[in-house]
């Protein structure tokens, strides 16, 4: 039985899961091409007790695709996001113009926005890491979708930025698919509580830019940490 809940927001999804994301902007995904995250936001309400909720792997959807290379694929995806995050942020700032270019620290301070906690390190259990990452990239996928939507509106000619946003969003989407596979197959986890950020819909252009800037800056910081944490866990034996 899948139980999906949201904290402070939700993501819109595809046709089957749109109901899962209360905060999700239904316009986002069709325009960005991001298939609504299946968002089997498998919530372990009590991570420690999560084992009691494990089900057999035979019930994982797409079991045949959960192959041994998924772990490496996940690592490569995180590495790819980490490698492109800074460029994406820089390009985003560049495309927003002043005062974001000069007042980055002040305007893009991420402390003012919601970002899921990523409190894992190299010594954390692999399953815990996987769950934390799932929450992180579920949030990022939704946030990047919103940012992409806002930038298509605010900077429709910034093709490279839009391409990078699309590509990053696609990558997070694939990463979520792989994490779902890993959690289901390896840890029988198929319920994870995820939180989505505040929707920028209806906000001013400046607020949209600022929110995007704040999320991306935080994204740069967190993805680097995630890459470092994930490396020993996902490296090939």
């Amino acid at each position, binding site marked *: 039985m899948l139980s999906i809940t949201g904290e402070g927001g939700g993501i819109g999804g595809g046709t089957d899961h749109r109901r899962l994301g209360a905060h999700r902007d239904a316009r986002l995904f069709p325009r960005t091409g991001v298939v609504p995250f299946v968002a089997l936001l498998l919530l372990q309400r009590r991570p420690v007790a999560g084992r009691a909720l494990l089900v057999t792997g035979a019930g994982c959807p797409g079991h*045949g*695709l959960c*192959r041994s290379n998924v772990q490496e694929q996940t690592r490569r*995806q995180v590495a*790819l996001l980490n*490698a492109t995050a800074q460029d994406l942020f820089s390009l985003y700032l560049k495309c927003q113009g002043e005062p974001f270019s000069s007042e980055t620290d002040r305007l893009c301070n991420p402390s003012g926005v919601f970002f899921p906690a990523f409190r894992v390190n190299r010594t954390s259990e692999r399953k815990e890491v996987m769950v934390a990452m799932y929450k992180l990239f579920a949030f990022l996928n939704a946030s990047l979708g919103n940012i992409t939507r806002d930038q298509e509106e605010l900077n429709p000619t910034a093709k490279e930025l839009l*391409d990078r946003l699309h590509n990053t969003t*696609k*990558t997070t989407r694939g990463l979520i698919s792989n994490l779902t*596979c890993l959690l289901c197959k390896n840890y029988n986890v198929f319920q994870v509580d995820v939180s989505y950020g505040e929707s920028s819909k209806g906000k001013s252009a400046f607020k949209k830019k600022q929110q995007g800037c704040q999320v991306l800056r935080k994204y740069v910081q967190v993805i680097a940490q995630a890459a470092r944490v994930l490396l020993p866990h996902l490296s090939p034996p």
Partner: protein
Amino acid sequence: MFSGWNWVAHCLYLLLNICSLEVSGGLVQSCGHIIPESPVLALGSNFTALCILNESCLDFGNIYANQIIWKIKNKVVPKEQYREINRTVSSVTFNDTSSLATPLTCNILADGQIEQNIYGITVTIGLPPEKPKNLSCIVHQVSKLTYPMTCTWNPGRHTFLDTHFRLKYRWPQENFPDCIPKDVNNSCTIADVQFFVNLEVWVEAANALGKAESDPLVIDPIEIVKPLSPHNLSVNSGILPTVLKLSWENRISIAVMKLKFNIRYRIIGDTNWMQVPPEDTASPRTSFSVQGLRPYTEYVFSIRCMKEDGVGYWSDWSEEKTGVTTEDKPSKGPAIWRIIDASRSPASWTVHLMWKALEPFEASGVILYYEVTVRAKSSLSSPPEKYNVNTTNLTLKLPNGTYEVTVIAHNRVGASPPSVLLIPASNTKAPVKNVRTLPKDGKLWVGWTAPNSYILKYVIEWCLVSNSSDCTIEWQNEPGNIQGTYLKGDIKPFKCYLITVYPLYADGQGSGQSVKAYLQQDRPSKGPTVQTKKVGKAEAVLTWNHLTVDEQNGFIRSYTIFYKTIDGNETAVTVDPSKTEYTLSSLTSDTLYTVRMMAYTDEGGRSGPDFTFTTQKFGKGEIEAIVVPVCLAFLLIVLLGVLFCFNKRDLIKKHIWPIVPDPSKSNIAQWSPQVPAKHNFSSKDQMYPEGSFTDVSVVEIEADDKKSFSEQDLKPFDLLKKEKSTSEGHSSGIGGSSCMSSPRQSVSDSDEGETTQNTSSTVQYSTVVLNGYRDQTPVQVFSRSESTQPLLDSEERSEDHAGGSDSTTQRQQYFKQNGGQDETNTDRPCFERTKQITPANEGDLVGFAQLQISGQSSQLLGLGLEKNTQEAALLGVLQTSTEGQTVRPETVEGNPLSVDEMPKSYLPQTERQGGYMPQ
């Protein structure tokens, strides 16, 4: 009555039913229908259709299922396939749908006669889709962030139905919209794919008969990427002259894909690529230094990439970029050779030194000049002469001797090692042997057998042999350890090359050995022009000129002469190529021949122009062989004729030129019985050579005995008279004609009495011509008179005597009597007459007289030829004749009066009025 109405109603109902089939909207209800309606059937399957009649039709039209006829198109289905299920349902079964066609109709026989259609369906036959096979996908990078994936598959057999293919793909927890091919059924492109996620891909084929799915393909798209090639390739010269540094940009992030590379390069102008060892470029990078290059050489580079682990596809090769390495010192000295012209002066040479410009990789830069040093080996004291030249040749005039020439090439960086050539005073060393050539791989290979001694190197000279240009020498050096090489030059096909190989020793050189060769042969560009040098009756000497070298296009292996008559078969004769002349034999005389000539190389032949000639009618000497024998035969015949005539002169004379009795010599009057009749033939001949009597007619009288001429003797005379009378008819009256009469013809055959009378009254005398026969001048000696006047008594008697003497003896006697007084004077009258006729031929006549006198001549006077040819001989004979008979002409001429002294001889008479008159 009821049945009639029923029948009408039935018909109307059927008509309405028929109309109902054609009227849309179902205004009229059909009498039945077929199930299934318009089925789609698998080919080869079985099929059963049911025709169900409406109950209303049963009641109204008496139509039942047993009356149903099934038809395919217009062909009735066999009844064996029918089955009457009940009275309203009939079925038809087909075991194999391949026998089906559309439409399938249900028909009924109304009242067993009229066939009416109840219903029809269309049948579609096809095949279910096959399982698509060989599904494969590739991700083409089209931009830095765009990676469409194209999948292809084998759609399987043709289904004859509308079959739809869909490319389906999904992630573990997510399905994506199907990719539907456009205009094709075997490929589809997904616009964008995500790396590092396993993607399941499969193809679904569906038509009315079913669906089929391919085996799923589970791939991570990153493993099937064909990346874009690196771009912005640049080439920079390194510090070393053998290094170039390449730099480029990759168009795929290293975070996405780590790449390995292939770098290829070639010297510009060369078509062969070299490649940097793949292991040197197996790691991600954006630059690479290519080493081991030639100095001052322009290179072309290109690069490609693929996923580092080799999974996926290589990109296309990048655009080509060029770069030039820096200069270095020339790596070797130029190859050097010489041509020595010793013809101008025996004591000195004109030496043409020539060397080859260094190849770019040898020159390692721009050659600025060449330093040439010439050192005489014989006089070590004299300093070497140095020349700096910009060209690749130098002509020097040197005294005969041995020299050492050194050439050094200089560029901006430095000088090359020296090249040394020893020019000996004479080529006394052993030459190479067995120089041969072989075209191979479009090049001309030259081989030779090396001498036993150590060879420093070889020089191969060659030049194009042509009529239109001089033999411009090209050459090349080869190391001394080889015995064959390809000529390194622009060797053209169909051209003759003269190739010479020189061995160079450390202390001299051997003489060159030459051979002619073609890289490729062809047929001659033209054939020889043949013409005749001499034409005979059965042979003709043909001549031609050799083809020029430019026309040969190869080695002339043979000539073939083709000749034929106008309507004859062509004959071919093969001639050795060294010949320029050939004699055709066994030709037909007086015949027009056409001849042409082909020259053959190894590749074929070409014919020259046709030439025609006519053989002669007669062969050499043939005319002479005919004419000369004919002439000789003619001469022989003439000679034989002459000899015959000469031998038979008496007979001829008798028949052709009879001796007419000369009345003037009649000696009847002088006749006396005392005249002895003892003369024999020889004496007669002496006395009267025939030639001397050609001007007279002689009556020969044979005498039986030596008795005197008595009356008995007159009898034959009478006979003679008869003959004379017959001769009248033969006398033409023309002078000389009587000379042709025989003596017998001159005598009349009439009776005696009349004969005497007639003779005395009609005998005619013609003019007797001396030497007047034919074209000789006729001289009247005496003429026959046309007068009928009787002769004088004395004459008649004389004639009678003459006529009575019938025997030769008597005639001889007669002449004997006439000449008995003086043999010399006997002929004198004749000579006298001769003198009168032809005074100019006096000498001849003298000779003739001598001949007559000598009694050795038997010639006729009338044959002047014989007379002339024998004259000298006769003179000789005369001089050596026997005693007493040789009479010199002076002697003859000295007695001109002898004639007048003959009192009893009669001179020829001329006719005068009043009778004969002695002259």
